[in-house]
């Protein structure tokens, strides 16, 4: 697929291709294991060049969220909830959240196709922490830490 010129950012082509497949990928440094987004040509933790892409579960904890009551996009009538989610592997992403979400909630990333090259990121609440789910064996403690850094440090 080719992107329209005004959308073109060669450093994120792979990220959005994965998103169109319903996958969430983050950069992961082969030298030190640090995960990062948005993508850069070096590791933010150890300066190694060319961090590789790695798929992640998309599970994370809400770091902050707000209810939007002002009209921003025509196709998105208020009220709605948006916020920052800290992925278990460390990086944070801004996305749409279910109504009633509060800080500390466990959520999982979903991609919603909208007919463009870049599907819309939104998060669902993690339903059940069952052993068969992708998040079943992950410890919940830490990712809800008060400083919000625990999850990132644990993952790197």
């Amino acid at each position: 697929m080719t992107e329209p010129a005004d959308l073109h950012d060669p450093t994120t082509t792979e990220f959005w291709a994965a998103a169109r497949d319903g996958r969430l990928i983050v950069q992961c440094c082969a030298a030190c294991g640090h995960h990062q987004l948005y993508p850069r040509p070096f590791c933010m933790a150890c300066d190694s060049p060319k961090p590789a892409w790695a798929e992640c579960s998309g599970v994370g904890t809400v770091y902050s969220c707000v209810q939007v009551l002002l009209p921003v996009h025509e196709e998105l009538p208020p009220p709605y909830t948006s916020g920052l989610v800290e992925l278990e592997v460390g990086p944070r992403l801004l996305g749409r959240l279910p109504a009633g979400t509060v800080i500390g909630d466990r959520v999982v990333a979903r991609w919603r196709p909208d007919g463009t090259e870049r599907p819309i990121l939104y998060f669902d609440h993690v339903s059940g922490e069952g052993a068969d789910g992708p998040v079943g064996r992950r410890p919940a403690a830490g990712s809800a830490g008060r400083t919000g850094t625990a999850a990132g440090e644990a993952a790197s």
Partner: protein
Amino acid sequence: MTGHPEGEPSKVPEFYITGVAESPLGHVADQSEPSMAALAAMEALEEAGLTRADVDGLFVNYMGEEGSVQVGEYLGVEPRHADSSDLGGGSWEGFVGHAMAAIAAGQCEVALLVYASRQRSLRSRSRKHATAPALPGSIAAQFDVPAGLPLPIGHFALITARHMYEYGTSEEQLASVTVTGREWARMNPKAWRRAPLTVQDVMASDRVCGPLKKLDCCPITDGGGAVIVTTADRARRAGRPPVAIRGWGESHTHWHPHQRRDLTTTAAVASGRAAYEMAGIGPEDVDIFQPYDAFTITPILQLEDLGFCQKGMGGEMFAQGHMKPGGRLPAMTSGGGLSYTHPGAFGIFLLIEAVRQLRGDAGERQVAPKPRTALVNGIGGLLSYSSTVVLTDD
């Protein structure tokens, strides 16, 4: 590094603010943005005992592409040192340090810092787009815009919500920031909002984004100002007592909210540390404080990050009234961005008010006894940039 050669006395350069002025404020129907900047510049120069011809350093943000070039043409100034750095609303605090460096390097002697905007009259920025829209293909366009947060309020709301979660800051404490500014604004005839205001009034105002309500947010006004930074020698000509610049620092931390690990701690930690160290003072030595109150969370974070209270206690400190008239740390003494004026960028007004208070020129709202040391903290972007200035009356 060792010091100066034996026998040669060290000459520490000294820097002064010798002229300050506001342009017309509020709703300005009879001036353009450049004419407002010019009116403020001429008044500040007159106060400084200087003329247009003396200006050899020009510091402008916004005011169009290549701001100092456009304003330089309008004023008829061809400077030896030019600076159009975009550091957001805190640019003018940043410019104070940039001017000091330029003066110390011999690149200029009379620095004019200026700003004007008619964004209330022109409605060039709606609440939806109070900052420039993200460029197609930018990180913001890809990773931020689809989430639908209004700018800038959505990002300040995220920070506010996190501060409430981490430290128990309440909406009433946030409201007390607006009330503090309003008590000062009631004594400032130039303030845009002067009606009496209670915490209950703020709490009852419409919720607009997350925890933030209408009265947690600054109004949009027209306005501008000018500040003259110069040498000790030139300061002798000033018509009003010169104010000394004793400390300065700047830093920035992030642009996108997902790139800041601790979203409730700002670059004021670093800029404040540098400014205190240069001035040889600490927060206990500060008589008045000029924080950047575009939204109620910001002065709370600045109190904490500049060492006036423990992290997390800024809301409580406001609620206790310490920054109100008669309090132990008068702050937002002009009325602040929340009540006095906020033409898109508020930084230059913080300097103007601090200088007037240190000279005893602040009229009905003059802090008594007259303050001797002021701390000014400009903020730019989405709590991205901070610059701290220490000013004294000698």
